[in-house]
């Protein structure tokens, strides 16, 4: 279970998130929606432990452990996975090399090269990723859509218990979006207790993966939470009414 309590986050001494509180039960699906610049990605990387984002107060508890100040790699080992909005290319580091070491770090299991490769190629097939990508530097020369699929590939291999999807639906066409949703559902079918926090500013992904709870983030604050009917409200009226209410 993820419990975020009164989280206040600053970047370069500028407060971006104010008093964020959020509780996600095991197996639940949450959507965090909001306009550009509302602080959605800041919340994503803060939950993952980016060193440039300072937590001014509040706490992040995951499965009973206070992870507010621990390093990103320890959060990953606790089962948290962040699918990045803009996954970076890392020159000279192949996908297979990186994922094998990551798999070992997260699971503590050392697979031999052949066993790991079989697992990797099977996951690539599910996402319709050409096998040649395994031995190419990670994300290098890839389109935005390919990068998103490679994020899902890592998800399939690393099998986390909490997935944070930062704008997984941006840059994806309908076919690719369906593939991504399929990958997510495959992992969740294997582990029904896996929680998902989807961060998005439109409702595309929520058509494939229906959230149990929806939170609206405006100017660094959660201004409204509800069930999935909140998505329809946002669809109908946009974020603007909330922005002006908040601004008054």
């Amino acid at each position, binding site marked *: 279970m993820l419990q975020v309590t009164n989280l206040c986050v600053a970047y370069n001494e500028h407060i971006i998130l104010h008093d964020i509180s959020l509780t996600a039960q095991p197996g639940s699906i949450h959507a965090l929606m909001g306009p550009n610049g509302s602080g959605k990605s800041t919340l994503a990387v803060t939950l993952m*432990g980016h060193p440039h984002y300072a937590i001014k107060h509040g706490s992040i508890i995951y499965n009973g452990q206070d992870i507010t100040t621990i*390093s990103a*790699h320890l959060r990953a080992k606790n089962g948290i996975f*962040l699918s990045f909005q803009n996954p*970076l290319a890392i020159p000279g*580091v192949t996908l297979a090399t990186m994922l094998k070491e*990551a798999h070992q*770090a*997260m699971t503590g299991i050392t697979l031999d090269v052949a066993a790991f490769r079989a697992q990797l190629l099977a996951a690539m097939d599910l996402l319709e990723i050409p096998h040649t990508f395994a031995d190419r*530097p990670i994300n290098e020369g890839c389109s935005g859509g390919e990068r998103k699929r490679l994020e899902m590939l890592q998800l399939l291999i690393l099998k986390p218990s909490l997935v944070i999807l930062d704008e997984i639906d941006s840059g994806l066409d309908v076919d690719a979006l369906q593939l991504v949703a399929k990958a997510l559902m495959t992992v969740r079918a294997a582990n029904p207790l896996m929680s998902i926090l989807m961060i998005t500013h439109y409702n595309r992904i929520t058509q494939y993966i229906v959230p149990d709870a929806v939170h609206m983030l405006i100017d660094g604050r959660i201004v409204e939470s509800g069930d999935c009917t909140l998505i329809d409200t946002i669809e109908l009226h946009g974020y603007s009414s909330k922005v002006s209410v908040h601004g008054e």
Partner: protein
Amino acid sequence: MVSSKKTANDHAYTYVAEKGLNRTLIAHISELKNEPGWMTDFRLNALAIFERMPMPTWGADLSALDPSNIHYYVKPLEKQEKSWADVPQDIKTTFDKLGIPQAEQKFLAGVGAQYESEIIYKSLQKRWAKLGVIFMDITQALHEHPEIVKQYFSTIIPPHDNKFAALNSAVWSGGSFLYVPQGVQVDLPIQAYFRINAASMGQFERTLIIAEPGSSVHYVEGCSAPAYRQHALHSAVVEVIAHASSKVRYTTIQNWSNNVFNLVTKRAVAYRNAQVEWVDGNFGSKVTMKYPAIILKEEGAKGLIISIAVAGKGQHQDAGGKIIHLAPRTTSNIVAKSISKEGGRSSYRGLLKVVKGAVGVRAKVQCDALLLDAISRTDTYPTIDIREQKVDIGHEASVSNLNEDQLFYLMARGLTQAQARAMMVNGFIDAFTKELPMEYAVEINRLIAHEMEGSIG
């Protein structure tokens, strides 16, 4: 002038020359090796040149090096009585981190006795001999194949080339001789002394490689394990002659202990359509000055230099490459990568020269420097001298730091900071590592990982 004695720290040697150099000593070394007169004369002439030439001041700082305070000739007993306990702890730790088996560790540190790889090596040597390939100690070659050695020795790097080439020419001892006959393709890499013996490589070795027309060979020297040395100067000379349509690749990995001045001259000549490749990895040492060179002498010759250097605390790696295009339609590529950390300094020093009339030359130089912290330093000294207009020349240089967001990306996948840094640094030198035989590539990855553990930025 010379004496047999035991050194203070109880290492047994049959013969130790007094410190410093003089004609009597040089003549005596030549006599001990039972060399022909021309070689004795060559050595004495080189000594005169060495004494005449000033210390080079254009590169790394050599002021701490005193050539008169060095033993120029030490002949060890066949069985050394050095103890494992004498090997410094940091060297032992590195051996462990590299995953080198205990028996091999002792041998690398100069403690062990015979190792079974010698037997494997002997059987490989038989196989090569059947093809007409000559691969032996260069002193042995001087006796068994005097005409070939005399024909090529010092023709690429004369003693007056530079002060340390002169020094090597005067005092050289040990090194390899490799001759590949016309049309012979040597399939496996030939390894100097075999990997396990790399640590017993000499201080002033001399290597001579001749590839006859249409032949091909890959020669590998060194290993990633730290080469522990008590002496402070390593000065080698390597000459490669690649005849028409031959292909020679020369791979070096050296990891000297951090008291060593490593001043090496390496040069190759490539004739018509021949191809020469230097793959050169420089770790360790106090100061390294090394710029493998290729002279593209006839039409269609190709040269490739891939050089990497890692400079840590108190180290200066002054490395690079030189390519000289003397003929039309010759092509070359230099890829130089350096990593500086913990106050270390790396310099790229290179030469790209195209003479008038060498039309249709294509050449590319790429040098990339990675700085792991704010106290380290990197600089580039590229000399480009192009005297012909009809050429295609490219030059790229970059300096970068480890990107924080890339680090975060890897750490978000469960890698520790040290693991993530090592992975990125290994990615940075991938152009070098992927050219290595598998076992070396694996060791280099581990070596980088080990170096990153101690340098969290």
